[in-house]
C-alpha cells in the first residue's frame, strides 16, 4: 500500500520534470532552428531579422494554440455534431434531440433552477464579499477575519458539499440531531426537517454552499480594488462632509464599479456551470436539478451523448455572452 503511494509520487514527480524539460527543449530547439533558417548576418541580415521576428511569437504561441484546439475547439465542434446524432453518436437524427429538450420537464426544471442560482448566488456573494472587504479593511484583526472568510475558497466543491451535508443532516425528532441547522432549530423549540428534500427551499440550501465559497473570492478582489481607490478622494469627501455611509456608496463603490461587475460576472459564469454541489448533495432530486448535472446524467447514466451534447450546448450558449462581456470589461480595465 505504502509502496504504491511512493511509486505514484515518484511517477508524478518524474512526469513533472519530463514535462518541464520537454517545454524547455521545445522552446530552445525551435528558436535555434529559426535562427539557423534566418541568420542575422550576411547580405540579407536585415530582412532575416524581420522575418524571424514575425515568426518567433508563433513559436511561443504554438503549444497553447495546439492545446486550445484539441481541448476547446474540437470538443465544441464535436458537441454540435453529437447533438445531431443518436444516443450512440452514430445515426443522424437531425433536430430530434433539440425537440426532446424543448419538451423535457427536467430540462425546464433545470433552466428554472439555473435562473434562480443566477439571480441569487452572484448577487449574494458579491454583496457579502463587498461588505466583508469594507468592514475588515481598517481593522487590526481584519486580515485574520479575511483569511477565515477566504478559506472556503481552498475547499473543493465536493468537499464543501460533504461538510454542508452535515449541517443539513436530518435525524427523526426522537433522536439527537447531528446536523447543525436542525440542532439549532430543535434547540429553539422547532421540529427538525429534512432540509434538502424541501422543494424550492432546498435550492437555497445548495446555493448557500456556493455563496459560502465565493464570498471569499469576491472579498479578496474587491478588497484590493478598495485599497486602490486614491486616498485623497476619500479625504476630499470627508472634508465635503460625507458620512461613512455616503462615503461608501457615493465615493467608494462607484470608483470600483468595474471590478464589482467583473466579480459579479465571473461568479455568474461559475454558477451557470454549477455541478459538483448538486451532484453531491441531491443529485438533482427533489426539484434541484441544474443544467450541468442534467448533462452529466444523460451522458454517463443515460448513456446518450446526443441529448447530453444538446444540454452542453445550451450551457455554452448561456455562458458565452457573459464571458465576452467579461473579457471586454477586463481589457478596458487594464487600459
Amino acid at each position: 500500500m505504502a509502496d504504491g503511494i511512493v511509486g505514484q509520487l515518484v511517477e508524478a514527480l518524474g512526469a513533472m520534470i519530463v514535462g518541464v524539460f520537454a517545454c524547455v527543449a521545445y522552446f530552445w530547439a525551435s528558436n535555434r532552428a529559426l535562427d539557423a533558417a534566418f541568420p542575422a548576418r550576411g547580405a540579407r541580415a536585415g530582412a532575416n531579422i524581420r522575418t524571424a521576428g514575425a515568426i518567433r511569437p508563433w513559436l511561443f504561441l504554438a503549444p497553447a494554440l495546439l492545446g486550445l484546439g484539441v481541448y476547446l475547439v474540437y470538443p465544441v465542434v464535436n458537441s454540435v455534431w453529437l447533438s445531431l446524432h443518436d444516443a450512440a453518436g452514430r445515426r443522424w437524427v437531425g433536430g430530434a434531440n433539440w425537440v426532446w429538450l424543448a419538451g423535457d420537464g427536467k430540462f425546464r426544471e433545470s433552466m428554472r433552477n439555473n435562473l434562480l442560482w443566477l439571480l441569487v448566488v452572484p448577487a449574494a456573494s458579491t454583496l457579502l464579499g463587498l461588505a466583508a472587504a469594507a468592514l475588515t479593511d481598517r481593522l487590526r484583526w481584519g486580515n485574520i477575519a479575511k483569511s477565515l472568510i477566504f478559506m472556503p475558497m481552498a475547499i473543493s466543491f465536493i468537499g464543501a458539499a460533504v461538510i454542508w451535508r452535515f449541517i443539513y443532516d436530518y435525524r427523526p425528532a426522537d433522536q439527537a440531531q447531528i446536523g447543525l441547522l436542525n440542532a439549532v432549530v430543535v434547540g429553539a423549540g422547532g421540529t427538525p426537517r429534512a432540509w434538502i428534500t424541501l422543494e424550492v427551499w432546498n435550492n437555497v440550501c445548495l446555493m448557500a454552499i456556493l455563496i459560502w465559497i465565493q464570498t471569499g473570492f469576491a472579498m479578496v478582489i474587491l478588497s484590493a480594488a478598495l485599497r486602490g481607490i486614491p486616498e485623497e478622494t476619500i479625504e476630499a469627501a470627508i472634508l465635503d462632509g460625507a458620512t461613512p455611509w455616503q462615503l461608501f456608496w457615493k465615493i467608494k463603490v462607484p470608483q470600483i464599479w468595474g471590478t464589482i461587475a467583473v466579480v459579479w460576472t465571473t461568479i455568474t459564469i461559475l454558477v451557470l456551470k454549477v455541478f459538483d454541489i448538486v451532484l453531491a448533495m441531491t443529485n438533482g432530486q427533489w426539484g434541484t436539478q441544474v443544467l450541468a448535472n442534467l448533462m452529466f446524467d444523460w451522458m454517463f447514466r443515460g448513456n446518450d451523448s446526443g441529448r447530453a451534447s444538446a444540454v452542453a450546448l445550451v450551457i455554452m450558449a448561456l455562458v458565452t455572452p457573459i464571458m465576452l462581456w467579461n473579457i471586454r470589461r477586463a481589457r478596458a480595465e487594464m487600459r
Partner: protein
Amino acid sequence: MAHVRLTGVAKTYGAVKVLSDINLDIATGELVVFVGPSGCGKSTLLRMIAGLERISDGTLEIDGRVVNDVPPAQRGVAMVFQSYALYPHMTVRDNMAFALRIAGKGRAEIARAVEDAARRLHLTPYLDRLPKALSGGQRQRVAIGRAIVRDPRVYLFDEPLSNLDAALRVATRIEIAQLKEAMPQSTMIYVTHDQVEAMTLAGRIVVLAGGGISQVGTPLELYERPENEFVARFIGSPAMNLLPGRIEETGAETLVRLAGGGIARAAVATTAADRGREVNVGVRPEDLLPTEEPEALFAGRVAIIEALGEVTVLHFAPQGEAPAVLAKLPGIHAGLRHRTLRLTARPGKVQVFAGGRSLRYPAL
C-alpha cells in the same frame, strides 16, 4: 473670513516627534504659505488644520473656537490636494456640487453656486465632462472650484501646483493670486516646497524645518533679514554663500576677517564682547559685485559659467573644504572663465551668523 490660531501644536507618531510647539496666528484675509524641505511636516500641519490628522498636543482655534476635536466637515475648511482628488466618476458639475448636496442645500442654490464658481474659473464649457477628459490645469481649477463652492472660512492648499508642468504652474499660480485678490476676506493657507511659489503668493511665509518654525515673516523680510542660516539658504536661488571667518572689529558695523583671506563689512551691530567670535558671513550671489579695490570680500578663479542672458551665474573653484562660492552678475559677461575675480558686497547686504543664528536678532 476667519482667523486661525495655533498654540503649542505638536504631532507625534508613537515615539516619533514630527512637529512640536507650533505657535502661529493667521489673521482674517491673510494668505500664509508654509514652506520647507520635504519631510519637514508642513503637509502634516496643514492636514491637522483640516482635521485629517489628529492633533497630538496644543490647541487649534478657528474664529476663537477650539476645533481640535471638531470633525473636518464642521471646521469650515476646504482643501485643494496636490493630486486634485476629484471624484473620477462624477462630472465637473457633480464634483463641485457634492458638498452642497451632502449638506442638503436646495437645487437652485446649488446650481447658482456651481455656475458662479465655474464662471470665475473659466470652467463653464466643461461642466458636464468627467475629470479624465480635462487637462491637469483644468482639473486643478475644478478642485479649486469645489473649494469655492463651499464658501469655506479657511482655504487650504496642499502643494496644488506640484503636479502641473512648468508653464501651467506659472499660469495657475497667477490664477490663485487673482482668486485671492477677488476674495480679500478669505483666509488661505498654502503649502509648498517651491520657494518661488512661496515668495510670489504669500502675504507671510512660515518656514518650517526640524519639526518647528524656523522663521515667520513677509517674503522680503525672509530674503533680507533671515533669522538663521537655514532660512538664509532656503530662501533665494541660488542659495546664499556662507563663508567662515572671525570678528575683528565691532560696533555699528562689524568687520569679519574671512578664512579665505577676504574681509567682510556687515551693517550688523555687535558689541566688544563679540570680538574674536567664529562666525559665518552670508552673502547672496546676486549681491556680490566685482571690484578693483585692494580690500575684497572674496577672490577666486571662475570655474563654471552659466550664461542665462538676463544674468550670468559664476561658480568659483572651491577653496579647501568650503562649498563653492557663487556669484550672479546682471547681464551678459563673456570671457570670464578661468579668470580670477575679486568680489565685494554692500554692508547692508551682508549677514553674520554665529552658531547658525543671525546676529541681527537678539540671542534666544
